[in-house]
């Protein structure tokens, strides 16, 4: 082949490639185009705002198709081709119900909440951490996920929970938290020792009627929505929407909530922590004085 022939071939090939891509670029600006990658007008306009990054739903659409569609499905309803083999089931985005939020129960999450969930993944589920995607890509995905439910177009996210300064970790705080664990009947699902073996554990279902297990504190696993004390505080103050875990924001005061956090940490025997160390020392000296948690301890566990 002569150089001239090659040049002709290259030019023709380049023209075809460029025309194909140019056609697609042009089509992107027309929502009624038959191109299946085109979205609805809401897809074209939905955005997300995360730490100064603006996510674009149109950019997220291709990413959704590449990374998410297998589980969450082409309709965003959690019925992807892999859903039947996955436990727990993938999130149904059309319901706009999200477990990990910083906003009150029943309200829409912040963009940041969705971004954090994508970044963190969900331990003990099939949802991995998508941190390998760059921040812009994750922001684009957030924008696209919001297009699955009309709620995001009609409602604003809830006011994020204000988390006060953590109270000191003391044995009194832990003991009070233990009382609350009994009083608020956390043990009915999570079990007296946090082993997820409470009397109600086997009967729990999520909002879709699928069986769901309470969190087992004793394994020392990360929490689904984070791993710090602030994350734990947020989890039971906002609740995990779509699951049986309610919000306790209207039930306990912030200081009480921190006491409960400190006690819950003592249940994480598989994860060495300051609260556990303090509690084990106390139990060694006063264990016999503690009332067991459970149905026989009505009126207080201490």
């Amino acid at each position, binding site marked *: 082949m002569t150089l001239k022939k090659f040049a002709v071939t290259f030019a023709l090939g380049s023209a075809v490639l460029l025309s194909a891509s140019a056609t697609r670029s042009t089509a992107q600006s027309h929502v009624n185009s038959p191109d299946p990658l085109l979205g609805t007008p809401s897809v074209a306009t939905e955005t997300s705002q995360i730490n100064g990054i603006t996510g674009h739903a149109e950019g997220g659409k291709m990413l959704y198709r590449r990374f998410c569609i297998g589980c969450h499905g082409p*309709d965003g309803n959690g019925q992807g081709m892999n859903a039947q083999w996955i436990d727990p089931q993938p999130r149904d985005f059309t319901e706009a119900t999200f477990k990990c939020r910083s906003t009150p129960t029943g309200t829409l999450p912040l963009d940041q909440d969705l971004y954090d969930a994508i970044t963190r993944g969900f331990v*003990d589920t099939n949802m991995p951490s998508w941190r390998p995607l760059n921040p812009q890509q994750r922001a684009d995905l957030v924008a696209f996920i919001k297009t699955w439910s009309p709620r995001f177009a009609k409602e604003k996210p809830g006011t994020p929970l204000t988390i006060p300064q953590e109270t000191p970790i003391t044995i009194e705080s832990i003991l009070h938290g233990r009382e609350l664990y009994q009083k608020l009947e956390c043990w009915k699902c999570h079990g007296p020792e946090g082993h997820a073996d409470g009397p109600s554990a086997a009967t729990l279902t999520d909002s879709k009627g699928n069986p769901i297990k309470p969190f087992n504190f004793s394994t020392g696993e990360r929490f689904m929505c984070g791993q710090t004390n602030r994350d734990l505080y947020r989890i039971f103050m906002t609740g995990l929407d779509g699951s049986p875990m309610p919000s306790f924001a209207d039930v306990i005061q912030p200081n009480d909530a921190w006491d409960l956090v400190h006690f819950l940490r003592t249940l994480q025997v598989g994860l060495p922590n300051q609260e556990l160390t303090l509690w084990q020392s106390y139990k060694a000296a006063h264990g016999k004085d503690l009332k067991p948690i459970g149905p026989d301890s009505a009126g207080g566990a201490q």
Partner: protein
Amino acid sequence: MSKKFREGANPMNMNWSRWKTMLTCAFLLIAIAVCDVRTASALPSGKMIAIPAFARKYGLPCSACHTAWPELNNFGQVFRDNGYQLMNDRDSPIWQNPSYFPISFRITPSWHRETANNQVFDGAGGPATATGAVTQAGFDLSGMDLWSAGTLYKNISFVLLPSSDPTAVWHFESAFIRFDNLHGSSWLNIKFGRFELDNLISEKRFLFLSNNGGIYQIYHFDNPCGAAPCNNFGYGDNQIGVELAGHSANSYTRYSVSFLSSNEGGVNFTTDVVPGAPPAGRSYDVNLAFSQAFNAPGPPGESGFGQERVGAFAYIGHRPTAYQTLDGSPLVGIDNKPFYRIGVAGDLSYKNLELMPLFMYGHDNPYLGITPGIASTQPTLPPGAQAPTFYGGFLEAHYYFNPQNVALARFEQISVGQQAFSNIGNGSSSNGNITAYSFGYRWYPIMFSRAGVALDWEYSRVRTIGQEPLSGDGDGVIASPFAATWSSSIYFGIDFDF
């Protein structure tokens, strides 16, 4: 079906991209018609890697880890760097349903046409009296990969890859165990066994399959030195040894240091993975690789351009120039002489366009430019011998119409810097130079979390001066050492992976 994914959401739906596929086919047909297609023969296609066993394990589509399988995207790179773990507490083998099948098959039935000109063959005047083009065409099979990979325990991963050529002659393409995240740090991982070098642009994971397009010429180039290759090193070949590697949490920063036997990945103290190879020496090679990725911001109001990665590598090796012998038969390679390859590479994104440039420089000791014998003492350098050098590289482009359709193109150029002998190739400084062009299109109608199928169209053409192209077919004997030899491939394959 969703309005947002009216047709394309279903990977089985073949309608939506038909017009693009037709355009690309038209492009290939034009290319075929315009180019000078005259002759051909057949060789096995390149080995490549994609592991649906992982997709089955984690319930993710191929596209989660691959830009277009088998090429990894950054999510797949992080998964691989983490020792085939997603780090979501479902990595352990005990998570798997007993029916989980941890093995992947890959093979590609194909039709292809191979051509090489400037060839010698028998003619009316007797043996080897005719010259011209040799062409072969027909249906064929690629080699086969039988992959098993995964975790033996948390942070202990493995790969076992028996691989065959199309005639079912098997060897171990890869076999290693990897200790991941030592001391809880992603910066400390140790791999032990036979593996691909930590190439930023992987030849084992690239998208070309044809004879001429199916290799990076520069990954296998050695300066012409006579009748046979003098230094058998190929940067794209799997090597055997131990590798220390590390990466940041998102694998944006990566490094590796490999300590390898100087035997081209050979086994049984020989220089190959199949029986009958010459014995290896006792020296060692080192490969160093580093890369850094960053996010390129886009224009105001738009998402960013994507991830950009740049990196550098250096391979310092030795090869024997003589052998300890018994009755004239070589036992162990001795009198090792050094060589090195250094280079830079990139993986750059501009939205749906991916560009992969690479530049490499190679330098051999003058003794490695002498046709190897089996002398028991180091040979004397003949007059005119000098250190062989070369330089060159390629630019490969992928355009992703979507995760299921990708158009490919590559241009590659290698120039000999200094000939092994001042008089080789009649003293022409261009002796051995290679120019290669490849175009292709891959369409993935099936991209489930269970299996993958890709239709692969390619046209590739390689020009070598005074030498048989590395990838070339024909009879292996060039008619004129001063003329350019062209070798071309037209290829269609159905690449499937289960």
